[in-house]
């Protein structure tokens, strides 16, 4: 696309958009959706490939200052002076709250499986650009996961469905609603017996209420709920154990010993933020060297199959097949004296381990926590409940409350029932809300065939996904940042969701649609939500029920992002007396023959660590975010242990351009179960359980979009195709054969070992108590040696002292608490306009992330003893090797000790990157930044230059945030307060593992951490004097198992 016609496009677009103001403008964007220029802009290839000339550092112009208008300033960046003279277009009527050039924050929440998480959304001139966690929200506490960070990109995703379609042809909402009306009116007389609604679990009270209204108006209609990550076992166990459907809550901050039975509660799953925070609150070691003996930590035992973040952080990790975990659970239970009717399980080779764990659990009665993972059969869940009750944890560390989801609980039966009804033509009208069963339903349900038989099928969703394509009508849904709504957090706390922006494509929310189905007339979302909460308020409030009073309540709720007092009360429940009855081995959903020493291969399923169940498949940030334990990007794979790989004859294939920092052509294995089979590239994961092969859901999409895969160019393979409702999470006895095909897998770090370099320094709690400064010891020793050799300090140059009276910015990262969830990586990408480069470029070793999470394996790759995560941003060295080799002063030190990178001065010699000992610098080998895709440009952070081709870039400590805080402080003539500057990575981190601040202020958090005995600098011996330092990792292993 040459520069010229791009320019004309934009001009055209500009024309069409003139005369719009404030949020209104977005609506006109929607009307525009038809025009050729806009189509062209939206259809641009993506992720961007190298483009010829545009050296457009100045695209930001369009973003700032232009306010409401789309006045696109000239395309040439730092090429010619004078800077291109664009148009400047003021408002006609100034909007109340917006101050041009200053960002605003709005509270809202993102509903995701596991409960909504409260967010604060940064908005520039009516454009949401960045998402932060809401500190006041129980599920967030200020933190966010990769999914929340990335949702902003989904909002602007050019692949989002932009119009209503009927059999693929564009239609208007009015037509769609008319069809629905007639359809429903026909059904009304027989109570809607032939009407079916399929939705995901309902987190929204307002939606729940609309559902009730609908079912009132159509009493015979059925509402089905389905979620791909089936929890039948958990729910069934609840029913059997307590005779009712409950949610289980864990107080990790109160637990001294945690036993996880295949539960990845520290993983990057959306609901985990609070758990991570609570768990890590017990692992922070801030005691000074003097009273290091007082230091205490909780202890984590983990039995799992694949290497998850939880397993990586565990003090003791046992890697066994999913099907074998039940046996171990039974063994532990029986050791604890919990009756394990049926088989008492057998620890097999892990006798000692089991005994030690049981002893430890016993020892900490009441301060113990046992949880079972989704994938585990009913029996394991039952045992977990039982042990918790037996050890008196209930009420201490474990609590029960009514389930957060309203309406029917998501059971696979519900979906099967729907499928059967459809097959027997009992369904004449099906409305799918936001779900995508055609892609994700278990194979044995054959949902697609059944679906074809329904005469009128309507789908509401963000994308023209697999299900949408097989429905007559597709209604484009509004993104959660575009609509009014509400959602409950895991503990029931409700949050009001407010639109940050007019719907880009005039989408509607599920609430609005269901309300229409119920009443056959349109009601704006805001009204629906307000009325729901008005009633709630009417019940709650003691005072006068005036509108003003409600408005006040409404405003505070909106502002705080939580509706006060909506958390669920704790329920005191006890196990049913006959619960053991259900422990019969066959009762377990698996039907796994967990005989010890059984060598057959097992196929285990898991949600993908980055694209989750597939609903995020079209998100470039998530696709390119390296998966925590494998660092794979843009693909899922058949994960297996080195041992298993050897058995299958799998080994690393020919390397791609980047070598281990790029990718390999891996052999493809065929996985066969009964008549189902799938081809999957193999990937070797040190620490994975032997004889088990893990595959992740979420890939192999047929119509996700240009990023997530389309029929002609799929990304990864579809693991759902191997899944049945009877064996939803693991399949024993799968046939695995290596084919002679190969597939390129792009990874960012294949080298697992530290090669005897103390990069990640770690020790047991015991050792810390004896020798608190074990981490900084090597340097101390070195210094002693050197001074012995040469009394004078080994300096050639006299040091250059920075000017006083300026802050000394620095960062400290706590390796004990970092769980490697990658939230920092995506947050940084969102904050700093970091481009997505695509699989091929990642394979060439050119990914652009400013902060990466290194992953090391202690011991050997065959038998890993420990796993380490080490986030590595720019070190901002005081003796930066990159600076003195730059020939043009494109990277120099600022007075506050920032390692400034001046993009517009950079000529791209790459010497700085070569000489960077930490290899944190990233180079724009091509024109990566996407200036062409109109909608994506709206997401760019106006305070950060968008880098063009041929310049180096790297972590800037979020200098734009520093400056903003500094200017505010200067205006008020006061020093910057500690915590006033929060970097993007720090803000996102759920574990609170990052501290940033002024080191010259000894009161600042960062300074405090830095003075900890655990503090050490990476590669300190090089004399680079990093401003970013680490707190060594401390683990709390059970002495009985040490060396065992």
């Amino acid at each position, binding site marked *: 696309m040459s520069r010229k016609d791009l320019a004309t496009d934009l001009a055209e677009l500009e024309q069409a958009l003139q005369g719009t103001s404030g949020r209104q403008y977005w609506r006109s964007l929607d009307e525009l959706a038809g025009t050729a220029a806009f189509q062209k802009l939206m259809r641009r290839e993506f992720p961007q490939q190298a483009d010829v000339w545009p050296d457009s550092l100045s695209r930001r112009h369009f973003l700032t200052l232009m306010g409401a208008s789309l006045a696109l300033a000239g395309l040439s960046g730092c090429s010619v002076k004078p800077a291109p003279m664009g148009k400047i277009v003021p408002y006609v009527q100034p909007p109340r709250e917006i101050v041009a050039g200053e960002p605003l924050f709005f509270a809202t929440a993102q509903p995701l499986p596991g409960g909504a998480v409260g967010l604060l959304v940064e908005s520039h001139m009516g454009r949401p650009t960045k998402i932060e966690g809401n500190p006041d929200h129980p599920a967030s506490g200020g933190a966010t996961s990769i999914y929340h960070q990335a949702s902003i990109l989904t909002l602007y995703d050019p692949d989002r469905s932009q119009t209503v379609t009927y059999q693929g042809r564009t239609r208007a909402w009015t037509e769609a609603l008319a069809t629905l009306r007639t359809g429903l009116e026909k059904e009304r007389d027989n109570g809607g017996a032939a009407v079916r609604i399929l939705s995901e679990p309902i987190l929204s009270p307002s939606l729940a209420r609309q559902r009730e209204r609908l079912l009132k108006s159509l009493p015979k209609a059925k509402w089905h709920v389905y979620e791909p990550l089936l929890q039948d076992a958990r729910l069934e166990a609840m029913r059997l154990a307590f005779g009712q459907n409950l949610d289980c809550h864990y107080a990790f901050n109160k637990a001294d010993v945690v036993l996880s039975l295949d539960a990845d509660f520290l993983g990057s799953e959306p609901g985990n933020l609070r758990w991570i925070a609570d768990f890590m609150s017990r692992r922070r070691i801030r005691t000074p060297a003097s009273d290091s003996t007082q230091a205490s930590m909780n202890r984590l035992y983990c039995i799992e199959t694949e290497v998850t973040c939880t397993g990586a952080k565990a003090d003791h990790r046992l890697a066994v097949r999913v099907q074998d975990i039940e046996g171990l659970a039974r063994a532990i239970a029986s050791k604890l004296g919990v009756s394990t009717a049926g088989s008492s399980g057998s620890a097999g080779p892990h006798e000692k381990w089991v005994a030690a764990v049981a002893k430890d659990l016993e020892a900490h009665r009441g301060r113990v926590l046992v949880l079972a993972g989704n994938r585990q059969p009913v029996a394991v869940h039952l045992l977990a409940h039982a042990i918790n009750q037996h050890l008196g944890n209930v009420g201490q560390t474990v609590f029960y409350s009514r389930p957060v989801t309203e309406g029917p609980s998501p059971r696979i039966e519900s979906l099967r029932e729907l499928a059967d009804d459809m097959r027997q033509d009992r369904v004449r009208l099906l409305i799918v809300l936001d779900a995508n069963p055609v892609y994700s339903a278990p194979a044995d349900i054959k949902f697609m065939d059944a679906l074809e038989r329904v005469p009128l099928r309507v789908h509401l969703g963000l994308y023209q996904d697999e299900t949408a394509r097989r429905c007559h009508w597709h209604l484009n849904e509004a993104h959660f940042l575009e609509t009014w709504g509400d959602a409950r957090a895991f503990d029931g706390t409700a949050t009001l969701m407010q639109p940050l922006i007019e719907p880009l494509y005039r989408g509607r929310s599920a609430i609005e649609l269901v309300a229409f189905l119920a009443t056959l007339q349109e009601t704006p979302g805001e009204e629906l939500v307000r009325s729901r909460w008005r009633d709630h308020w009417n019940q709650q409030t003691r005072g006068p029920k005036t509108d003003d009073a409600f408005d006040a309540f409404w405003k505070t709720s909106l502002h705080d992002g939580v509706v006060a007092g909506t958390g669920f009360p704790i329920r005191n429940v006890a196990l049913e007396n006959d619960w053991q009855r259900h422990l019969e081995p066959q009762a377990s959903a698996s039907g796994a023959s967990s005989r010890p020493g059984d060598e057959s291969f097992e196929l285990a399923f898991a949600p993908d660590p980055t694209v989750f169940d597939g609903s995020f498949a079209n998100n470039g940030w998530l696709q390119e975010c390296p998966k925590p334990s494998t660092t794979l990007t843009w693909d899922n794979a058949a994960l297996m242990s080195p041992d298993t790989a050897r058995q299958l004859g799998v080994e690393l294939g020919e390397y791609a351009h980047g070598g281990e920092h790029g990718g390999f052509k891996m052999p493809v294995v065929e996985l066969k179960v009964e008549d189902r089979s799938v081809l999957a590239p193999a990937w070797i994961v040190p620490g994975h359980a032997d004889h088990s092969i893990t595959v992740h859901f979420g890939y192999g999409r047929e119509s996700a979009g240009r990023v997530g895969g389309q029929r002609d160019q799929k990304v990864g393979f579809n693991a759902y195709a191997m899944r049945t409702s009877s064996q939803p999470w693991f399949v024993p006895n799968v046939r695995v054969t290596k084919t002679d095909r190969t597939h390129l897998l792009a990874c960012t770090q294949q080298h697992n070992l530290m090669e005897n370099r103390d990069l990640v320094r770690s020790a047991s709690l015991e050792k810390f108590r004896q020798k608190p400064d074990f981490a900084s010891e090597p340097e101390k020793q070195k210094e002693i040696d050197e001074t012995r050799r040469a009394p004078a300090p080994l300096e050639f*140059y*006299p040091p250059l002292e920075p000017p006083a009276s300026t802050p000394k910015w620095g960062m400290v990262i706590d390796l004990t608490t970092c769980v490697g969830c990658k939230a920092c990586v995506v947050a940084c990408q969102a904050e700093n306009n970091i481009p997505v480069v695509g699989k091929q470029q990642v394979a060439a070793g050119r990914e652009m992330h400013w902060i990466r999470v290194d992953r090391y394996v202690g011991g050997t790759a065959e038998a890993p003893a420990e796993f380490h995560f080490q986030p590595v941003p720019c070190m901002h060295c005081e003796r930066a*090797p990159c600076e*003195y080799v*730059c020939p043009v002063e494109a990277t*120099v*030190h600022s007075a506050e000790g920032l390692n400034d990178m001046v993009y517009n001065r950079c000529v791209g010699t790459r010497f700085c990157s070569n000489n960077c000992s930490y290899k944190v610098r990233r180079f724009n080998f091509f024109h990566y930044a996407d200036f062409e895709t109109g909608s994506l440009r709206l997401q760019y952070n106006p305070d950060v230059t968008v880098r063009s081709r041929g310049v180096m870039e790297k972590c800037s400590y979020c200098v734009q945030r520093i400056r903003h805080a500094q200017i505010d402080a200067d205006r008020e003539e006061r020093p910057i307060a500690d915590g006033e500057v929060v970097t993007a990575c720090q803000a996102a981190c759920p574990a609170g593992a990052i501290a940033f601040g002024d080191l010259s202020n000894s009161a600042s958090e960062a300074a405090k951490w830095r003075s900890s005995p655990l503090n050490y600098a990476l590669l300190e011996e090089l004399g680079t004097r990093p401003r970013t330092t680490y707190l060594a990792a401390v683990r709390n292993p059970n002495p009985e198992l040490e060396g065992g």
Partner: protein
Amino acid sequence: MKPESNTKPFGLMAEFETVDALFAATRRARLAGYRQMDAYTPYAVEGLAEELGERKTRIPMVVLIGGLVGAGAGFLMQYWSMAVDYPFNAGGRPLNSWPAYVPIAFEMMILVASFSAFLSMLFLNDLPRPHHPLFNVPQFARASQDRFFLCIEATDPLFDAERTLDFLSASESHIGVVEVPIELETAPKEAEASEQQPVTVMS
């Protein structure tokens, strides 16, 4: 017969076959008191210049000065721009990281010195001078190939058309003596014709 030249000639020039003959003639002319003269040889002949009374050249001094100026300027340029004009903290190095400035100072020294060597050579030799009376003499073409010439210039106080002619003609084993006209009065074409037979005087 004698050459009739209306204008004073540039000088008289004798042609030799061997370098020895040239040496001999030069020494003789010098003893005879001639100073304004020059020898022309197809390659650098050691000692000849001394015979002609050349003393040491000033080139080495010029080069030395050039070198010092170059080095000094080079270093000052770096010091000024790094430490004075826009001081930056680059990698914590001091503003005057003199060791890092040595290479460029050195290169600048070489550069300026070399140019001064070359240019001073041209200047002192009063080159470029594509046009010169000597080139009016056809045989002179061989000065750049295989013949040796000695030219006594008219500017020499002792110079006298006849006596000098005789003097040169007397030098042993010379091939001939020609008068070097300052200007060709005729266009090259005819001139070629007229000057086919050099004026030689038998002794």
